[in-house]
């Protein structure tokens, strides 16, 4: 689904200079989300745009420049921390949580019902066994270690947890969630409970790569944006590139699992350091 959106974005794509500028912003925001300094965007754009619009689509560089071209409603996903600008009206989008054995889209037990909200799916291959990955993820208190927009998750009962996500201006959005489907070392599916600020649900599947190259981790996150001011706030919070944010979360999960830490340059010296002198 994410793929079809991307393709739609490319087709819709990227020709007007105005969009190019926004593409630059997208790079910058992605950059900020990784905690580094903003890149020299104008140079990057110049570099990318030197190839010309038509060729860009071919090279996939269009992703740099299609920030706003996906159009449609704002899609936000709390918990996985993302917002996605998606084309609405795709029935595939309302499949349930991407789990065959789990509830279908018409299942009344799903927080975000079929026909409402939006969904993002991402996957990553990690050089660890399903069991190792499952047990780390199953302890939801670990999630904020790689999901940057979560402030905390507190396990409050066997299948229950309390989630707090960061919101603009130091405020937070909170909800309680339950695990409603799980299969050891294979699958975890959760959803927010009645009374959540933002209805949301997510699932993660762990599949051994058939050729022994680690574990394929597939994450599906759904979010039902509230109307009114809160909805706008949440949209603002998750910024311009929601699918990228999920991708970054999964990347950090992989780094943490494989390398034991996430690489960083935050706090290293440079000529920009506050105390740097000439």
């Amino acid at each position: 689904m994410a793929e079809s959106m991307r393709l739609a974005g490319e087709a819709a794509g990227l020709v007007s200079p105005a969009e190019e500028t926004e593409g630059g912003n997208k790079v910058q925001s992605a950059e900020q989300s990784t905690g580094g300094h903003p890149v020299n965007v104008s140079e990057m754009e110049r570099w990318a745009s030197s190839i010309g619009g038509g060729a860009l689509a071919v090279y996939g560089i269009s992703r740099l420049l299609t920030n706003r071209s996906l159009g449609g409603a704002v899609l936000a996903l709390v918990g996985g921390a993302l917002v996605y600008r998606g084309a609405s009206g795709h029935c595939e989008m309302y499949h349930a949580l991407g789990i065959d054995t789990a509830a279908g889209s018409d299942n009344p037990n799903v927080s975000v019902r079929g026909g409402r909200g939006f969904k993002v799916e991402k996957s990553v291959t990690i050089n660890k066994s399903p069991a190792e990955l499952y047990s780390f993820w199953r302890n939801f208190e670990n999630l904020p270690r790689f999901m940057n927009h979560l402030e905390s998750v507190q396990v409050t009962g066997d299948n229950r947890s309390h989630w707090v996500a960061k919101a603009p201006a130091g405020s937070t959005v909170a909800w309680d969630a339950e695990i409603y489907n799980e299969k050891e070392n294979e699958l975890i599916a959760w959803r927010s409970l009645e009374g959540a600020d933002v209805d949301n649900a997510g699932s993660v599947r762990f599949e051994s790569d058939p050729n022994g190259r680690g574990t394929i981790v597939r994450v599906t996150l759904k979010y039902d944006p509230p109307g009114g001011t809160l909805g706008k706030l949440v949209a603002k919070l998750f910024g311009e590139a929601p699918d990228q944010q999920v991708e970054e979360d999964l990347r950090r999960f992989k780094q943490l699992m494989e390398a034991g830490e996430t690489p960083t340059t935050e706090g290293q010296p440079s000529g920009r350091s506050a105390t740097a002198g000439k």
Partner: protein
Amino acid sequence: MKALCWNGKNDVRVEDVPEPKILNPRDAIVKITTTAICGSDLHLYDGYIPTMEKGDILGHEPMGEVVEVGSEVTNLKPGDRVVVPFTISCGNCFFCQKELWSLCDNSNPKASIAEKLYGYSPAGLFGYSHMTGGYAGGQAEYLRVPFADVGPLKIPEELPDEKVLFLSDIFPTGYMAAENCSIEGGDTVAVWGCGPVGQFAIKSAWMLGAGRVIAIDEVPERLQMARDEGKAETLDFDDEDIFDKLKEMTGGRGPDRCIDAVGLEAHGATIDALYDRAKAALFMATDRPHALRQAIHACRKGGTVSVPGVYGGFLDKFPFGAAFNKGLTLKMGQTHMRRYMQPLLDRIQRGEIDPSFVITHRMTLADAPAGYETFKHKKDNCIKIVLKP
């Protein structure tokens, strides 16, 4: 501490910056004893590599003494002497485990930038733009080394810095360039570029069984070094039509293996080279692949073109038809450092090679900005500059 910072095209300065700290459990801090300026740094200096920022600390050929280690680094301790490779590798991912160290999945904190340009991100590199992580580099008094339990190579006390420093980049790079050629006994290997990388490619080609090595450049002292140190036959591309000359020298067949040790800023006075200059100047293309084109054109049928020279973006008039119809093999990439460091240290210890032969200039870190100018313009017969902080 003092560090060499990039401030824009042709503008590097030694500035006072804070000392690096341990940021992750697998980090170490190394006090730099010797470091160098690389041809790759010139691509940054000349503004050819995007995603540089004012204030970035350059340098990726450092060595020194470990002064501090993170809690997860158990194989190093303060006082150890190490050479630090320019690629940063986690050691645990699919790519590291296949010894494709420069393609590590987990060492680039800004992987999303590289993914936009390349589809997938290569490893993080020291001092080499934000696309490869934006890590502070080693032309400084101290360096923070991430995944220090994987990269740095311990150096025995008796070997002086200058003999082992180039294990940080250019010796392994020249060696991998020759290895990528899959040289068969008696092959003729042609090497474009007699800079430091070309010099090590020449020596390595002999080590790997070449029957003949032909080196190409225009700078007299570099050609001289290729003859004297590298025992190569040489061609000056200003004087000779390289294709015709190579064809004639190889009895009409062409060199079996061709190495492009020039990279994206090739010089030349042929029509395609002038065209590249004009296009790059207008920013219609990003790279100037003149030497690479020539290598592909000159290579014999069924031969190999190995590319250690750095390219960043989009190449114009790339003779893919020649590569295809002659059935060439193309091999390239940033060096998989960890594969080569120990075996090449062994060669140094056995006395098979003393890599310090490329050094022409020794300077202090404070003089590094002048060093960049000297190296860039090949003033004063400059081939390789080492810096002492």
